[in-house]
């Protein structure tokens, strides 16, 4: 079973060492170090301004760190410093081996072209050229994310918010990435739509044995999706551990405040 073997894998997939980012004199992210293993889902939680989105950009090579480094185990098994990758390798990561789910689907989708093309585009970027196969695979993925296949030729601008977010997930997962970054994936959606999306993401992550790094300010999202959690405040990681442990037995004053601030339903 893929999930088992990937979770028992002893070699980290991504390693962050002493990561820092300053905007001018303002430190947005300070001294972050951790290792992420294949199949592991890590949540980064904290309020706006805590540095969690900056950290996600550093980890996904969209932003260069002021200090420290991020290494990633390429498919050949070698751990490589992201800052030293060549253009072809970076392209491989962005187009194939990684996914990035944005909070706003409009950032991760092409709103004017059809849903099928949105999914198929990632496949064409990795060399698929058989139209029928691309369309079949796109249909399978639409079905997998619970979008009516009859809507395959419609553009996402005609979709609801929840459908757009599910389409963005299909577009990201179609190339079978090993690592997916998610930035507030359920932000801006209705609660009922959130539950459906969370359940879907949770199943996909576990079925595909994906590693995931999820930035969220919603502790319920962290509880449902992640194995481990890092709590950030003022650009630092102030507490880290198993998700249920940190949420049920928080140690740091700030984590206790976060946990106790949740309104019971």
């Amino acid at each position, binding site marked *: *079973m893929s*999930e*088992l073997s990937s*979770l*028992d894998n002893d070699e980290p997939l991504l390693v962050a060492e002493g990561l820092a980012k300053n905007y001018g004199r303002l430190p947005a992210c300070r001294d972050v170090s951790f290792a992420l*293993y294949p199949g*592991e889902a890590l949540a980064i939680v904290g309020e706006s301004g805590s540095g969690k989105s900056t950290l996600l950009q550093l980890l996904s090579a969209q932003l260069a760190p002021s200090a420290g480094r991020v290494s990633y185990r390429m498919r050949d098994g070698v751990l490589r410093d992201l800052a030293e990758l060549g253009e072809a390798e970076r392209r491989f990561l962005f187009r194939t081996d990684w996914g990035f789910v944005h909070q706003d689907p409009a950032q991760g989708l092409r709103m004017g072209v059809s849903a099928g093309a949105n999914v198929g585009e990632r496949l064409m970027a990795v060399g698929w050229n058989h139209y029928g196969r691309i369309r079949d695979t796109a249909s399978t993925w639409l079905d997998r994310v619970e979008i009516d296949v009859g809507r395959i030729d419609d553009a996402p601008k005609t979709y609801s918010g929840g459908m757009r977010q599910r389409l963005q997930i299909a577009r990201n997962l179609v190339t079978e990435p090993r690592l997916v970054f998610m930035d507030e994936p359920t932000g801006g959606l209705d609660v009922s739509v959130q*539950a*459906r999306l*969370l*359940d879907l993401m*949770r199943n996909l992550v*576990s079925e595909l044995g994906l590693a995931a790094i999820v930035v969220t300010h919603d502790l319920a999202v962290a509880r*449902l999706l992640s*194995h*481990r959690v890092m709590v950030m405040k003022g650009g630092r990681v102030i507490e880290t*551990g*198993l998700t*249920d*442990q940190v949420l*049920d*037995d928080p*140690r*740091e*004053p700030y984590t*206790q*405040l976060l946990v*106790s601030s949740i309104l019971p339903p």
Partner: protein
Amino acid sequence: MTAMIELADAEKTFTMHLQGGVELPVVRGVSFHVVAGECVVLSGPSGAGKSSILKMIFGNYRCDSGRIGIRHHGKVIDLATAEPRQVLSIRRSTIGYVSQFLRAVPRVATIDVVAEPLIVNGVAREEARERAGKLLRRLNIPERLWTLPPSTFSGGEQQRVNIARGFISDLPILLLDEPTASLDAANRAVVVELIAEKKTKGVAMVAIVHDDEIRHLIADRIVDVTSFAAAA
């Protein structure tokens, strides 16, 4: 007999930072062991720390000092100092936990809630569902409810779903927090039977039960938690 669980001087204190840093000692000096095929029942009044001890053995509450040795894949791992990945591995293939309340994902059908621990351990979905169905039938959950998510069920039904989920897998250690609390006599008897079957399979169990009759039926040994009271 080899101990499956061995606690030595385990200690837990909550520090409530939002209440001016009040220290709330929960338990200290917790020492006992559980061997394969044995059911140890924790006794003591509410608030004595029974559930906290169970949560510490599951790695849900952190252990401040002392040792919680768990036999996992033939080696003893100290949960008090284990890495998160080791704790996850222990939960997947060594320790099961039947909590007092079911915490299920919205939208997931009852049969899948119960089958999930098997699927995670590599059992094929069809076989896992079949075994889940058998257990649900034994626990008197009518078949017409299996495809519904358990969130709409009564308290007793939810607890039986939770029990089915906890008992379905072949894990060598089971932690039971009030498994019979809101059940009627017939279903209590089923749980007693299930526990007896686990014993014959060599499963080590730690249980909390308030009902004297049930305790008498399942306990091989009783550990009195009041001796671990950490009253300041």
